[in-house]
């Protein structure tokens, strides 16, 4: 009998203990599910990233996506909500870019689109009013995006070709060696190369000795290098497509001894993944206007924070395209917080008034326009005394502020229709 009573009591204790445990667990669950961290995960802010995620231009897409991922981690939750990146590959095709952007907006319901390069940004301009989400491009080389075709929804953080023209003038006039040099343009046979050549030719007093444009599929640069050498050029500006063609050109220029005869001038600098690939060869190159540089960290704490986190996350140095993409993301997150909403128009209004320190420096968009007041970076690529972030070579930093290079929006042909 006594044994049964003990059994009953024990069972009662077990049942009551279970009930208490259940109630405590329920409270814990409710608390956990209603915590800000859970809310942030449950209802994230979706951001579309449209870039080159495959093929020959994948290294550029990698820089862009890793830069944005770093900015997401660096900034943390936005308005208490986490950021969810949705990556889409444009396949280097304008039509695909439009299809993917439409999918991002209509199906995924993204708040904004980041990561676009020239091809995607140009493709999205005509449909931006239909998409109705802010698009911040950080890797575009066309003047019309923030010039005559500027659009209410499309912003740009990386410097424009017109800004590069002023930078070229500054490089030549401020460097006695370049002022006295014989200039030659050796580029690919497409419009950008000719624009770069014009930017050299219009510099007052420049000694311009010639130009040559090679077909886009050139792998053997020997005949063109022979032409440069025959001209006696001592400064060669090289608007050659970034990536394999530029690597091949620089390697072969060195092979033929052109690097002993002349300094090579890269009109938009070199991405750091290319500098790493070229190694010692990169020291023959001077940048006439890189879009950013990780060594800005010597004077800008946000750049340093970004570089350290980028290295921790991706195991390499943050290149100019990564820093630019990270900057675009940082601006977007700040704008969403300032707007206090994910409404497109509210974010655009916030972007227009933003003035923050980003990985590429102090950043705000020009009045009545869509171009960021961003500095261009001039200087030679040099060997570092001590490797940093895995880099042994890097561009020296001579920042040319936007106040010297960026024209007012109206002068650029930008007339915004809200």
């Amino acid at each position: 009998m006594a044994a049964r009573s003990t059994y009953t009591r024990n069972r009662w204790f077990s049942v009551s203990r279970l009930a208490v445990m259940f109630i405590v667990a329920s409270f814990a669950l409710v608390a956990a599910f209603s915590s800000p961290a859970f809310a942030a995960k449950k209802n994230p802010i979706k951001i579309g990233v449209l870039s080159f995620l495959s093929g020959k231009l994948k290294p550029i897409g990698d820089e862009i996506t890793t830069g944005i991922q770093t900015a997401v981690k660096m900034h943390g939750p936005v308005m208490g909500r986490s950021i969810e990146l949705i990556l889409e590959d444009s396949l280097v095709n304008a039509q695909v870019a439009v299809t993917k952007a439409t999918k991002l907006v209509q199906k995924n319901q993204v708040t904004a689109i980041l990561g676009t390069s020239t091809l995607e940004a140009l493709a999205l301009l005509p449909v931006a009013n239909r998409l109705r989400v802010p698009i911040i491009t950080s890797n575009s080389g066309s003047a019309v995006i923030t010039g005559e075709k500027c659009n209410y929804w499309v912003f740009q953080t990386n410097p424009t070709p017109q800004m590069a023209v002023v930078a070229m003038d500054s490089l030549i006039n401020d460097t006695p060696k370049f002022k006295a040099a014989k200039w030659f343009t050796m580029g690919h046979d497409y419009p950008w190369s000719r624009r770069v050549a014009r930017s050299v030719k219009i510099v007052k007093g420049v000694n311009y000795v010639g130009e040559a444009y090679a077909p886009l599929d050139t792998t053997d640069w020997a005949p063109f290098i022979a032409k440069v050498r025959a001209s006696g050029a001592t400064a060669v500006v090289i608007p050659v497509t970034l990536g394999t063609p530029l690597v091949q050109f620089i390697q072969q220029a060195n092979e033929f001894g052109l690097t002993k005869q002349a300094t090579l001038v890269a009109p938009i600098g070199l991405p750091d993944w290319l500098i790493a690939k070229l190694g010692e060869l990169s020291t023959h190159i001077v940048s006439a206007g890189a879009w950013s540089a990780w060594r800005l960290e010597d004077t800008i704490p946000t750049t340093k924070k970004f570089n350290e986190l980028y290295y921790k996350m991706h195991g390499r140095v943050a290149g100019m395209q990564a820093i630019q993409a990270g900057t675009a993301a940082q601006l977007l997150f700040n704008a969403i917080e300032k707007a206090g909403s994910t409404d497109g128009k509210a974010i655009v209004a916030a972007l227009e008034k933003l003035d923050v320190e980003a990985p590429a420096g102090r950043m705000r968009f020009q009045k009545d326009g869509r171009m960021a007041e961003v500095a261009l970076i001039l200087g030679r690529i040099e060997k570092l005394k001590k490797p940093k972030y895995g880099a042994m070579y890097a561009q020296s930093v001579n920042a040319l502020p936007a106040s010297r290079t960026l024209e007012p929006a109206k002068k650029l042909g930008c007339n915004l229709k809200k």
Partner: protein
Amino acid sequence: MFVNSLNGIIYGSFLALTSLGLSLVFGLGRVVNFAHGVLYALGGYFFIIFLPSLGWSAMLFAPLVVVPLAIAMEWLTIAPIRNRDEIYTLLVTFGLSFMITGAIEYLWGTETTLIKPPVIFQGTVDILGNQFPVYRLFASTLSLLVTGLVFVFIQFTPVGLKIRAITDDNEMAEALGINTRWLLTSIFGGAAGFAAFAGALGAPIFSVEPEMGMGIIIDSFLAVILGGLGHLPGTAVGAFIVALAKSIGGGYIAEWAIAVLFLVVAAIMVLRPRGVFGRGRIA
């Protein structure tokens, strides 16, 4: 003119090596091998894989890996459709070239790899007041030597005799007891070996990247067409015509280099539709 001509000869000797394989494969099996370019690229990739452990002898080992791969490719994809029109093999090899390029990108990434020439071949040499890279001269000489050996093999060996017989009349050669099936597969493998060797030899000049075969395949096809389809001496001469047209055109009127090349090809095709020696096939 001298500088551009020498540059043309250097590139031409290299192009001759890649074009010969294409010409042989077409001459024997009527196979328009669009995958020849990716076999060239595979040579470059296997070279950089073996280079750290085998040193510069990797240049010889890279083709040894590509040859069995090419033979397997021929067995599985080309042999079953050999008796159909050339368009079938062209489409199949065209598809294969994309598949293999995709596989290269998947396995080794899309980046470009730079290779420095061996120390003894670094630097330049002065030729009549012009600086020429030593390695280019070495690669050009080696290419010419290998091309010469191929000609000797075709011209003076019993196997070469059989190859010439099949090239002239496939059915008759078979009727006389020549095992065309075995020979066609072997030649396909051999041609792939030459392409792979060229890819390895060219790595310190043109670097290594997944699409490296695309440029060379177009120039090689032009060389084969100029030389007369399936005619080996014509193909070698065609390679030099293509290279000189590109080099001289590029040196004087860079923007028109491609136009110059195609004008030269068009002119020769009109004047000599069966190739420079008039011995090739029309189709």
